[in-house]
């Protein structure tokens, strides 16, 4: 049975983080990735598309997000990272099959983890991902070495993942 418009919108919002992340792996720009997600959602709602199942919707959404990312790069005459369709498709498949929580729940968990992290860690991540500075520029602004920035970002990602998983497990345990 076809998904209704309301179900399509609810499912897209539930998977918003992963679809946006799929776009980010192509464009490496969080604002472009957000814009691409909005375009995917608009297309799903306004292009007279029909989806038989959540799996069909997600399969379509990941492919469209990836394609929009390539178009975005092409319009700006930027090169892709070099992740070919096969590898991007593998990433999409792993996203679709990995255990998932609604985007809103994960964002709340990450918000809590960031609040508990040192101010310098939050500033580093904001500079790198929201303001779009390179690690080299972040190193200059924060007065630390470039390698130190890479290591800190690497460890922050690992620590935040552990923290978010722990919070999600607590939520499930409480529920």
């Amino acid at each position: 049975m076809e998904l209704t418009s309301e179900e399509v919108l609810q499912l897209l919002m539930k998977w918003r983080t992963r679809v946006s992340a799929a776009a980010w792996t192509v464009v490496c720009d969080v604002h472009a990735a957000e814009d691409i997600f909005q375009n995917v959602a608009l297309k799903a709602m306004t292009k007279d598309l029909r989806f038989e199942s959540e799996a069909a919707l997600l399969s379509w959404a990941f492919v469209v997000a990836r394609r929009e990312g390539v178009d975005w790069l092409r319009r700006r005459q930027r090169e892709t990272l070099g992740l070919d369709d096969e590898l991007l498709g593998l990433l999409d498949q792993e996203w679709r099959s990995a255990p998932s929580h609604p985007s809103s729940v994960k964002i709340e968990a990450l918000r809590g983890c960031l609040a508990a992290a040192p101010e310098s860690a939050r500033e580093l991540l904001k500079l790198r991902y929201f303001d779009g500075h390179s690690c080299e520029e972040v190193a200059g602004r924060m007065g630390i070495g470039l390698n130190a920035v890479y290591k800190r970002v690497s460890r922050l990602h690992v620590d935040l993942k552990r923290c978010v998983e722990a919070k999600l497990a607590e939520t499930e345990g409480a529920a």
Partner: protein
Amino acid sequence: MDTDETRRVWILRFLEGKVSAEERARVVELLRADAEARRFLRDVAEQSVMIADIERSARAREAVASMEHPGAKRRRAVEPLRTRASGWVLAAVAGAAVLAMALYRPWRARPEAVLTVAKATGSSQFIGAAGQPASMLAAGTRLRAGDTVATRSCDAWIELRLGDGSAVTLAGHSALRVLGTDAGTPRFSLLEGSLWRSPSTGPRTGPVWIGTPTVEAEMQAGQFDVQTTAGETKVRVNQGSGRIRQILDGASAAIGPGQQIAASLSRKEPLASVSQPGPIDYWACDLWKVPEVVLGRWLPPTGQERARLAADPLLWPLGDGRSVMLYAVAIAAWKSSDRPVVLHGGSRLRFRGRTEAARTVRFGFSSQRMQGAFAGKFEIDVPSPTLGPAGATWEIDLPLASFRPLQPQLAGSPEGLELTDVYALTLEEDVGLEINHIELVPDVP
């Protein structure tokens, strides 16, 4: 640094493009072979977009809170950010507004209506501020801050009435979000597509404020239209005046009757209003310059063809619960020309393309009145024997006079209309339709 951390740092450098060609190949191979490496990449991607979401929500809440605080200095909900990403601020805040509505309780009582739907033609969509969608938009629906309306096909439009009696008409394939009012001035966000503003027949036509992904337009009374995509906006004024501010760098310019302003994220020229150019009757779509594709996907170039746009599937409703699968290529002609493209009855549309199997191909175009609303679609079916053998490239000239009008009540002929979208499609079966070139050729007198 342990091996795992070494690999993670490699991946982070790869994501920034700070690796040599040899290192890039090694990282790609690592990602292909190592599930843990791919898991880290996915974690980085998810966390980066979530970090941005959290930052945007925080800024949107700050902006809203400062608007609500009594006595606070009045300022717009969109606060321009002088960051590298400033070109996307409006889209980001609009996205944050949608996210805020989806995640948080409504932060104030139901706001007052800003405009009313006077007429909705064709397939349209309404998404209320709380995220509830409705697939049919009825005349008389009152729209408030946070509501979004969208048209779902090129032959749909929505006529909206403001409090002063003036009208805003939303064109096909367009989406508009109501932001509310500021000192009595209605404020909208045109997310994609086009709209026209027509003056009131009453004593006074008030100002409006329109934001797009690229500009903020403060428009005084009069008649104007706005066309926008994610990276470009064009404003054309026929009556009245306004001021356009480019979000990317804060530059602004006045605009008056007979003038237009085009603002693009990739444009390097200073923002300036210029006289509206006259229409042209010859148009060639250089596909290799990557025009605005409404439907289709790019294929790698070959030795013979630099640009190959392949048909994408589209389920088209026929009514009564029935639908048909189309495989279509569609280009937004108005977005790939600096001047309006005028149609004449004696002109021809030239297509070059191919199919992998012999099938009838339907060719078509949509039109609008010059400086006006949708004026109809025109189509013609070309049987496979006319196109030639399957797999071979064909080039076909189609006189516009031979296209049948799908909405004859709007226009029986394309004479004098403006070209908007051009498309080609096959019905029900994917036969590998590919388009390489499209051209509008006027009749030689």
